[in-house]
């Protein structure tokens, strides 16, 4: 099963490698990882997407909890939450397709954040399904480059106790 796990950690150097080392050292896979500061600059939050059976996920969360710098671990599998990721896509459509690409971007609430003689760079955010769909639809028009962030996730307010 695929799990999105958020890990609240002390914002110190070396913490990222402790966390990623835990995964690599035990042969667990990280599908995506995103890190950023929280409102408290002494604390960062990591969102990790990983897969494994129940036993592996249990080990992962326990092992994360055991790390000295980890303050809190939340497995979003058990909680109603929202997830987002962002993608930046540089497309170089043929001249006659340019309008089509712009339309598609609009449908997906993408924004053109840069453009050249023959390229657009489109930014869009959304859950994984939306991002995948957008990439699939844009593909035929010629993707020059694209980057995708890891996932970030947050619990829905009503789900909180």
């Amino acid at each position, binding site marked *: 099963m695929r799990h999105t796990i958020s890990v609240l*950690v002390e914002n110190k150097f070396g913490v990222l490698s402790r966390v990623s080392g835990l995964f690599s*050292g035990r042969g667990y896979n990280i599908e995506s990882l995103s890190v950023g500061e929280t409102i408290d600059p002494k604390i960062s939050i990591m969102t990790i997407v990983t897969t494994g059976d129940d*036993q592996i996920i249990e*080990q992962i969360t*326990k092992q994360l909890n*055991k*790390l*000295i710098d980890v*303050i809190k671990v939340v497995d979003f599998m058990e909680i109603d939450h929202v997830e987002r990721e962002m993608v930046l896509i540089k497309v170089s459509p043929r001249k006659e397709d340019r309008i089509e690409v712009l339309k598609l971007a609009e449908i997906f609430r993408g924004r053109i954040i840069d453009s050249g003689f023959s390229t657009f760079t489109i930014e869009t955010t959304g859950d994984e399904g939306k991002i995948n769909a957008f990439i699939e639809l844009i593909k035929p028009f010629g993707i020059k480059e694209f980057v995708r962030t890891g996932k970030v996730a947050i619990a829905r307010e009503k789900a909180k106790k």
Partner: protein
Amino acid sequence: MKKTGAEILIDCLKKEGVKHVFGYPGGVVLNIFDVLYDEKDVKLILTRHEQGAIHAADGYARASGKIGVAIVTSGPGATNTVTGIANASMDSIPMVVFSGQVPTMLIGNDAFQEADIVGITRPCTKYNYLVKDVKDLAQTVREAFHIASTGRPGPVLIDLPKDVTAGKGDFIWPEHIKIRSYNPTYEGNKWMIKQAAHEIAKAKKPVIMAGGGVILSGASKELRELAEITQVPVTMTLMGLGGFPGTSELSLGMLGMHGTYYANMAVQEADLLIGIGVRFDDRVTGRVASFAPHAKIIHIDIDPTSIKKNLRVDIPIVGDVRHVLKDMLKVIKEDVKEPWDAIRKSWLKQVKAWKQERPLHYTYDEEKIKPQFVIEKLHELTKGDAIIATEVGQNQMWTAQFFKFDKPRTLLTSGGLGTMGYGFPAAIGAQLACPDKLVIDVAGDGSIQMNIQELATAVINKLPVKVAILNNGYLGMVRQWQELFFKERYSHTHLESGNPDFVKVAEAYGAVGLRASKPEEVVPVIKEALKVKNRPVFMDFIVDWKEKVYPMVPAGAAINEMMFDEEKKEEKKLKAVK
């Protein structure tokens, strides 16, 4: 008054009550060593190799229950500690290691003798630090000692750049300490403990399996009480030996790959297995899928990650073993009133039958010294009152089998990592921690050569450590596997032709060297060695090289699929030669 980082460091060690530090100097730790020059309260023990320093600190910790401390230089000094640190980490030994580092402004520049030791040791320490500012030093040392010794203990490393030990600051000792993200659980869940107590009462064929956690948490007394009240037989892992008296009627000795027949049988037949401070290592469980197949499993451990890691568990209890056992005893004494003797009668009878059916066994020989005989004699002549370190290999397993450990902290052995070269420096550390105790390292001729240079450390410090070398001329344990599983193709396990004369080596260092080549020389040599009071002794026992460790569970088999000594039928009784 401002102090240098080095002075602050030593002040911190004094605050922590550190008396002995093991170490080796180098350029970037000179400031520290300079302060140690005039220091009376903290004594530096100079080893001859940094690995020796770490193992010595480890042996010091295991024997005394205090935190082992070491100081080494940057680069090669620091990298030489990695085996020792990994060893301590696997066996959960409280330790603080200080490594020197190049000045902060040179870090990351491939400076002379630079190594990213914080990066290198990240996976094998409980935690590690790089101190970048002298004002953080005292706080860091305080935290490190706290982390090393609480929860599941382990080694913590502090990397100290040269400018931090040279720089000046105020010494402010933080009396109280709180690490927001570090809160080990000591008390077990009361409801679970109650459940467990009732399971013990219900069980027809229960077995307690005690591990190193019993010793680390100081729970031997509670364990003994539990076993004796409820009349449950106790088997121990290698790390658990001494946690329960090996001479007790209820003791099954060690289980696992080289465990006793009766321990392995009992576990496989059990309807309840109570794992206490164990982590169910593969050397213990054999094929996991066939381990304790009929048993409900209760698992008590301070480390939640140990629980359900490789085994299904019915009642998991996270907490310090001593706390949990205390609570469990309370429940048992107050709520669970069973006629214990009566309900255990048939199970204990069965266990006894297994013990009689196949006791630990070897065949005595008139011509050749049997290594097991040496261990038996060591036990007999010391009356079991000794701290025994071991190396790794057959010597380690024979010691575990034939020396009946009755008290905790009397067996120092590399359980998790299996580090050859551990025992001798660990024995040196133990002797410093316990100057009035008899300390013996049981070694193989291979293992002793991994840290033989520490003879100098023992001689200089007048430490009467005894080393019993079971000299079989081979890397015996590997040879055993080659004999059993590789058609006797002894690829690179023969040592005899290159072995030194161990008696002369000892003498060359200023130690005492003794040798026994015949069975009748064993006792006189041990007696002679026991008389030596102010120097280390090497006892070179030329043993039968063919001897193997039995029983043996081949890797990947279930633990009741044991191989036995094929010579059993020719058994001559030991009594005859006494």
